[in-house]
């Protein structure tokens, strides 16, 4: 038997080895993901340069600009309607996306989880394929369906239900449709992972005790599936709030979301501090959502991916 002291030394050597082993991954993430985030925080407190970039002069204008706008002549501040409305629209669209994907995703996950073992794998694969296919291509596919000369308008016109195409593209509805479409698999997979572990004997017991299907759903299945439902909601809400590709393709130039507003500040807007402040704002909302998740589910529900 080894001495306790020797064990201690061995353990500390083991831990040192483990730090060394994880160093490359930590350094890569620090250098090209986490570190730069801190620079964004710094930049949000500087003043904009004339051609983009920043001037090394401390300023709160970036942060003030998130909600307020300064009148050029009178120097008075008023609520920046454009920014606030984009912020509200982004949060609303993301929430609605989350709710709609939940309403469609939960039954779909339940359907997959209750298939016999053999076919279940196939249904799962059918959800996994869109999950890993390019988001840009899937958005492009939606674009082609809802265009003025796309499939939906074409069919409706053939049926004689409408005489002129309905303008669906470049509306908030288009953004919503696109986001629901691209993020649906993100909802289904974690909900499925949770339902898969559900003990269906409990469901049977409830039926034996004369529960109605609706009561079984609300009293047994949903409470047990809650960690998965919350995980799925968070997984949809976060990318939806920061969505850039989908709104910029389906929303056109006018219907912006937060992601596009941020991009604008680094492009034509040439206001990097404002763009940085908006980015941090976005991240704070996301962090709040994550904290909500940790509070409510903790580590027990994180079995996905």
């Amino acid at each position, binding site marked *: 038997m080894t001495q306790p002291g020797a064990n201690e030394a061995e353990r500390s050597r*083991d*831990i040192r080895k483990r730090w060394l*082993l*994880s160093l*490359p*991954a*930590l350094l*890569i*993430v620090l250098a*090209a*993901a986490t*570190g730069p985030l801190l620079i964004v925080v710094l930049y949000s407190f500087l003043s904009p340069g004339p051609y983009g970039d920043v001037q090394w002069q401390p300023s709160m204008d970036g942060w003030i600009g998130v909600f307020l706008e300064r009148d050029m002549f009178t120097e008075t501040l008023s609520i920046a309607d454009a920014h606030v409305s984009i912020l509200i629209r982004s949060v609303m669209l993301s929430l609605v996306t989350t709710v709609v994907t939940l309403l*469609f*995703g939960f*039954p*779909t996950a*339940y*359907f*997959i989880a*209750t298939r016999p073992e053999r076919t279940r*794998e196939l*249904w799962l*694969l*059918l*959800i*996994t*394929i*869109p999950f*890993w296919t*390019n988001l*840009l*291509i899937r958005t*492009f*596919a939606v674009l*082609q*369906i809802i265009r003025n*000369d796309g*499939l939906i308008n074409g069919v409706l016109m053939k049926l004689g239900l409408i005489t002129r195409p309905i303008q669906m593209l470049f509306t908030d509805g288009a953004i919503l449709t696109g986001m629901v*479409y691209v993020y*649906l*698999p993100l909802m*289904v997979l974690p909900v499925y992972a949770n339902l898969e572990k559900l003990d269906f004997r409990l469901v*049977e017991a409830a039926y034996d005790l004369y529960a109605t*299907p609706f009561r079984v*759903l609300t009293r047994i299945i949903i409470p047990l599936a809650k960690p998965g439902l919350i995980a799925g909601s968070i997984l949809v809400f976060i*990318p939806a*709030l*920061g969505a*850039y*590709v989908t709104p*910029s*393709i389906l929303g056109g130039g006018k219907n912006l979301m*937060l992601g596009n507003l*941020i*991009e604008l500040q*680094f492009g034509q807007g040439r206001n*990097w501090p404002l763009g940085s402040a908006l*980015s941090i704002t*976005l991240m704070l909302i*996301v962090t709040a959502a994550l904290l909500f998740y940790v509070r409510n589910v903790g580590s027990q529900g994180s079995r996905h991916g």
Partner: protein
Amino acid sequence: MARRFSVQRQRGFTTIAITCFFALYLPIVVLVFYAFNSADSLSSFQGVSLRWFARAFENQQVVDASLRSLQIAAVAATVATVAATMAALATTRTEPYRGLTLKYAFINQPLMVPEIVTAVALLIFFARIKIWTGYTGLGYLIAAHTAFCVPFAYLPIRARLENMDSTLEKAAADLYATPWKAFRYVTLPLLWPGILAGFMLAFVISLDDVVITEFVKSAGQDTLPTYMLGQIRRTITPEMNAISALFLLMSICVVIVFFVVNRKRV
């Protein structure tokens, strides 16, 4: 135990599920269908033809962008997988030690932050470095891709490791295998499916990336997705459908391989 099928049924759930599957695949099917359109535009389907595929292959910009995408993805996924494998070995099969949670948080951090924020951060950071060093090559894109690939490579490798017990490695050590030999002949072969899965995920994630690439790239560094984004914003011809169809085909192949590899658990 005989599960009675009807007990598990919930009213309307099957209908909703089938609708979802239908809605998920309809746009993709239409997209691929129109890739074979012989007409000049997407407004009507005039006949089957491969002309848009041929056009895509002749388009030098498309070829260049594809090669660039593959090059970035190959390097980024390889580096990320090696780093992630080492990190997974360092963070699994151990009693909790100081800094372990910190490591988890760090490695998974790119997953927690909206892509657009990371993109902006890298734009700012690399703009500085470009001024300081004057270097404007593909290195920035590769570095950025490697970083966000790390968590994707890490997750399946870690999952695999957690399902492996260390009995065999201990046996190897008892038989006087050096730590390296034990790793090379015992751990690595057992871990291999996880590493492969991690690499493929990282590779696909890198190939698919639009947002971060769009912000980080210098002039003339379009990858296939950023080239497509630029084209979709202008006029769309069936050539875009042809490129998308090929891209889809590749993704589907990778996913199926991933699925098969990942299913064969010990």
